[in-house]
């Protein structure tokens, strides 16, 4: 199984990465080898194995609906490269139309 150039481009768009042709060419075989590695799992027979969502043997861990102090505005914005009026300031996103959530 090998990823097509179009598939690599689609993955890049989903991750908002603007890859050059050279980068696509170098990333493609790397992704292929990652997929091949994971594909080894298909060798296992899972016919009678129940699907699982966690490897832990616990469930129902929750907290009370009680407010606790969070971060101050200055703290929240402390690491942002750009800010304005208490907000994070971000540049337009690559492929905004395609990415805007439903």
């Amino acid at each position, binding site marked *: 199984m090998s990823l097509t150039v179009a598939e690599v481009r689609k993955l890049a768009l*989903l991750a*908002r990465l603007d890859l050059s042709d050279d980068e696509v060419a170098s990333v493609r075989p790397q992704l292929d080898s990652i997929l091949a590695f994971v594909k080894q799992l298909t060798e296992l027979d899972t016919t009678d194995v129940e699907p699982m969502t966690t490897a832990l043997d616990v469930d129902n861990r929750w907290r*009370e609906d009680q407010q606790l102090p969070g971060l101050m505005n200055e703290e929240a914005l402390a690491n942002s490269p750009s800010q304005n009026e208490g907000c994070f300031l971000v540049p337009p996103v690559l492929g905004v139309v395609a990415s805007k959530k439903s």
Partner: protein
Amino acid sequence: MTLSDGYPTETIIGLEVHVQLKTQTKLFCSCSTQFGAPPNTQVCPVCLGLPGALPVMNEHAIDLAIQAGLAIDCSIPPMTKWDRKQYFYPDLPKGYQISQFDLPICADGFVKITDDNDPEKIRRIGIIRAHLEEDAGKSMHDEASGRSDSRIDLNRCGTPLLEIVSQPDLRSANEAKNYLTELKLRMTLLGVSDCEMQEGSLRVDANVNLHIDVNGEKIATPIAEIKNMNSFRAVEHAIEHEIDRQYDVWEETGKTIKDESKTTRGWDDATGKTFLQREKEESADYRYFPDPDLLPIRVPRERVDAAKASLGEMPAELCQRLQTQYGIKLYDANVIVNQGRELIEYFETAATTSGDGKRTSSWIQQDVMRTLNEKQIRIADFAVSADQLGELLQRVSRGDFDNARARDVFSHLIKNAGTVEDAVKALGIESVDSSEIETLCKELLDANPQVIDDVKSGKKQAVGSLIGQAKKKNPNANPKQVRETLLQLIEQA
């Protein structure tokens, strides 16, 4: 339905409704969910998506979701889990939204609404599922300033939402509105959500297409998902507009559901039109997978039973009770219940004080609701309290004054607030004692002897002219009392 001189069409509508659950804190962290705080002041490492922060479920959100699900006749499966929905956008700092993909907390329910074409009939609108998810933040684009950067406020990030997905069972814009009204009513009666579209605690996306009957062959138009509607009225208008648009486009291009996949359209309130936002082909590929940071929930049976027990009255039961307890008709009970919890409480208080459910119901439906509409306010901000209205109507029932005088008092209360007693004094309304009325009536009969003859020959309505004159001489005279006194005096004459 037939569009003007076109083929018969059937409209197919399914709604996705996001309801914000009324918790104090967010779904996975202990930050406040209060609306309207200054930007980025209700945030913590979890909702900011800082490295190493871990989510912990809010127990109350789970209980509210169960209650909401039961209120729309959903089943609550024994196991539910969390999944990551990945998309890249600045208002979602983690790069994924925690949602529920294949095992939602509520499954397979329904809501009953009145049939659009026949008010006697009930239509059952299926609910596919209702799942919990966290909200994203807010991005603000300041186009006026010419800046291309957006400001991001993450206060809303992580606020608990319940997304309720209906079957495509709705057949008209009006039915969609009725369904939303019923849904909102149930959620607000339960107190699981405020359902304020203006504040974003209720959001609606509508999937719409047409089935056109071309000489017996059913042709389906491409599905459009409409977004950005900020009121029930906008939902109605947007769907109506979309029906016309899809028919026109089909006539022009002949494109069917087979030729074009689903598109997303925005609603512009100002132009009254929907506009293309994106083709579904270019939409994000969400790559859902189970969230490894969160454990599955095995909903304890006792929790579901407790939620069932605490549901309280749903709209149908409420209507039933108002009818029997206050002696009002089903139609009137429906009108009051459909206005929501605040008005129901207002009615119950006023009706109890006045001791006259029918009169209270008719005053609320006419005078009170008309004033609320004119002033565009809610009952909570209405100047006349339920107690004062009850007091006023009790006095009308007692015969202290007639409806016209009562309306004067009511208007005075709207303008000046205060009590009925204050208003009565300010307006100079005095109850006139019966001897005074008798003297007044005697004078009138002496001056108009022909009325006595008329009434005696069977024309009782002849006293009408005298009632008008009595009212002129003494504005405080109660017309009903004047009429009775006149008839009594004539009989004795």
